């Protein structure tokens, strides 16, 4: 009898679950993405770090430290709609660029370029940041000029040198598409399609890109045997007060979300990017950029704001090159106090690289759509090869 009951429950569970993209051609998933639990029709993160606190709720600290607040609580349908929009080139004026053009799943949601390729393939000056764990960030863009994902995405969507769309044109192209009209109804209670819903859905999807199950995370939570001794030695260099990496790339997200002036060089022949100072006009922030996360850093070469370094080894070696060694002559930058002369040995640089690779985790990779509602070819949805 009990066995029968159990089978019945299993059958019921199977029957009640909808099948993503199966029933009608365009039906949104009612199941939260990997890593998220459903509560009251909204999706909330379940991770190693759920039960930990952090000092002053800062979301920075050591190995077992709570995360900063995540943009969560979106519905499964909103997240799924965002997933389709993200890969759909309908969002660009020429119908040939999607969010995924510069944030490619196979490249750690970056693009492998020093400066991203804009409209008509034109090279731009800054490197596309990863979107893994982007939902935890308070400020976005290298120069921190946006304070929400909704605000941030209106940069590339409407910049002439990027997707070059206009708000009116974007809204019209979605409203003109019967598939999208139906999908927005599913995600937003049948309300008329508005641009704010586009921003919400893309925010919902991007915030679901969570990477917190790396081998480092296992170590941090007490499974010490998961890392090799060189990797642990690398972690100890990383958090030592000689290398000082963890002072700004602070666990658990490996960023303290501050602005830092480190004086890293531009690619050859490129003028100094003054970063935050161009936004605030504050000369002391000249050359300042948001400290990026190091999670999945192995996947997102080249490195630094303009992709000056092709390998992790070159990127970590910058920090032992001497305070201000790459600052152009005649230029004054108020360099961060942790940029100093650590005199790291070569083998310590190798250990750092070994440790950084333990931060790789793509286990919650979303399902990459092989077609999108516009009928255009989805961008950068090829299957991962590693």
């Amino acid at each position: 009898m009990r066995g029968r009951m159990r089978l019945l429950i299993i059958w019921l569970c199977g029957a009640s679950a909808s099948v993503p993209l199966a029933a009608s051609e365009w039906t949104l998933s009612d199941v939260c993405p990997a890593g998220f639990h459903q509560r009251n029709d909204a999706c909330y993160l379940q991770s190693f770090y759920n039960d930990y606190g952090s000092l002053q709720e800062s979301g920075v600290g050591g190995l077992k430290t709570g995360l900063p607040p995540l943009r969560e609580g979106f519905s499964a349908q909103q997240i799924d709609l965002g997933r389709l929009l993200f890969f759909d080139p309908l969002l660009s004026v020429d119908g040939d660029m999607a969010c995924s053009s510069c944030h490619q799943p196979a490249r750690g949601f970056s693009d492998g370029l020093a400066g991203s390729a804009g409209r008509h393939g034109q090279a731009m000056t800054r490197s596309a940041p990863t979107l893994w764990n982007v939902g935890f960030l308070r400020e976005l863009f290298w120069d921190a000029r946006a304070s929400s994902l909704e605000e941030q995405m209106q940069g590339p969507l409407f910049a002439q040198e990027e997707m070059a769309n206009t708000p009116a044109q974007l809204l019209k192209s979605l409203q003109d598409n019967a598939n999208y009209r139906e999908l927005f109804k599913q995600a937003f209670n049948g309300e008329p399609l508005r641009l704010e819903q586009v921003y919400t859905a893309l925010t919902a999807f991007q915030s679901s890109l969570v990477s917190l199950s790396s081998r480092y995370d296992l170590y941090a939570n007490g499974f010490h045997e998961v890392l090799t001794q060189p990797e642990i030695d690398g972690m100890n260099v990383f958090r030592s007060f000689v290398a000082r990496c963890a002072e700004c790339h602070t666990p658990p997200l490996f960023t303290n979300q501050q602005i830092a002036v480190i004086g890293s060089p531009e690619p050859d022949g490129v003028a100094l990017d003054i970063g935050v100072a161009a936004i605030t006009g504050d000369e002391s922030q000249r050359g300042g950029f948001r400290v990026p996360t190091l999670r999945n850093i192995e996947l997102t070469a080249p490195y630094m704001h303009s992709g000056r370094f092709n390998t992790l080894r070159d990127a970590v070696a910058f920090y032992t090159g001497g305070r201000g060694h790459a600052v152009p002559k005649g230029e004054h930058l108020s360099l961060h106090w942790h940029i100093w002369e650590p005199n790291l040995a070569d083998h310590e640089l190798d250990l750092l690289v070994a440790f950084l690779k333990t931060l790789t985790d793509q286990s919650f990779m979303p399902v990459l759509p092989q077609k999108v509602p516009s009928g255009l070819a989805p961008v950068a949805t090829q299957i991962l090869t590693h």
Partner: protein
Amino acid sequence: MKKIIPQGLLWLSLILPAPSLMAADILVKDGESIQGAVNKASTGDVILVHPGTYKESVYVDKDGITIRGVVIDGEWPVMEGEGVRNDAILYSGNDFTVEWLTITHYKGNAIMGQAGNNFVIRYNRVIDTGVYGIFPQFGKNGLIEYNVLSGIEDAAIYVGMCDNVDVRHNEVFDNVAGIEIENTRHALVENNYAHDNTAGLLVFITPGLPIKTTYDVVLRNNFVVNNNTANFGAPGSIVSKVPAGIGIVVMAADDVIVEGNIISGNKTAGMVVTDLAFITDISSDPDSEPNPDRMVFLDNLMFDNGADPVADVKALMLTQFSRSGPDILANLGSAQEPDNCIINRERYTSFGIKKWSECERKDTKDIVSMLIPGGAPSEVVTTEGRTKLLYQGICAGCHAYNLRMIGPPTLTVQALYLNDPQGIADYIAAPHKVRTDYPTMPPQGHLSPELRRDVAEYMLSVTK
């Protein structure tokens, strides 16, 4: 905000070890490795380090570990960095204690914490060691006492981004900064002897850090004398910008009480109160509030300060026809405002305190300690709790008990693998697609066979 705790209770809470049903002593003798003992240790264990020379860096990423030196006939265990090793002790675990060690010649810090609540750092000697001597960071509820530190190129004791810390009965000398309380709340600095540093006691907000405030700090009954050592801080460091000859610096910190200190022989000034403009050539941070607010300066013994002030201070003092530095210097700007207060101001030479009000508070008898009675709550993870944590941290991301998530319900898995945990353990090492309506599970082959088996057994035992 202040807690009145009977001293006895407080002591008990510090002395009683964390959960320690099976606590063991682990002996380390000269020629053996302290790290080796840490790797073997479990929550509640005490690692007894016998006299000898230990050339290693030790990291502690477990909860409830004590490292205790054994001193015999004046012979100490010595951790020797030989100028090439980074830090001597790095800890991240909660309820960590380190005591009775001599630490010398490391490049980085002697004792460094990254998170880790309820730490105790005491009876250590730190000599000529790198950047900071004792540096807890992101920790809540800590005690630093009876340590002697010298020859540190930054702060000997640096409490950075912490809450609820007592620093008492320490001697700090021949350092750039003696004791520094930075971006920290609820700190008591008491009965310390800070002498012959560049500056003795510093209470700072440093801009650009993720935790932005310093407030509720008491500096009480310290000797702060002859802090005139030329600044030998590393170029670019914050403390390299502090002029020599200052007893106490309060920069941007709020609600600082100074009482009962003996402050003498500091050649620039006995105490400087200032806003963030004190530190030049640093990237500005709009989220750091720059003004020192509500300073409370009670009775202190001050004399012989300001004998040979640095040029900036000399220039300020010339405006009131003196060539000497003052006992108390409130720097230009908000430090001179009347939200700051003082009693018996006539006893001191001063600059900039004319507008300071008369304090209502006359003493700090009500403040016994800043520690949290019973300790800070901390999620101590024991070895037994690991499997559950693994299940919740990894498996439960995709499997709920009786609901479809991205993976099938745990109930379904339990029915499939009834009495067959090894089947699950084998499958998750290299999953293949079983159900067309579910994505393929990410492989867990980086977990050892034992861990996979443990978590599989746990999954089969879950009942809700």
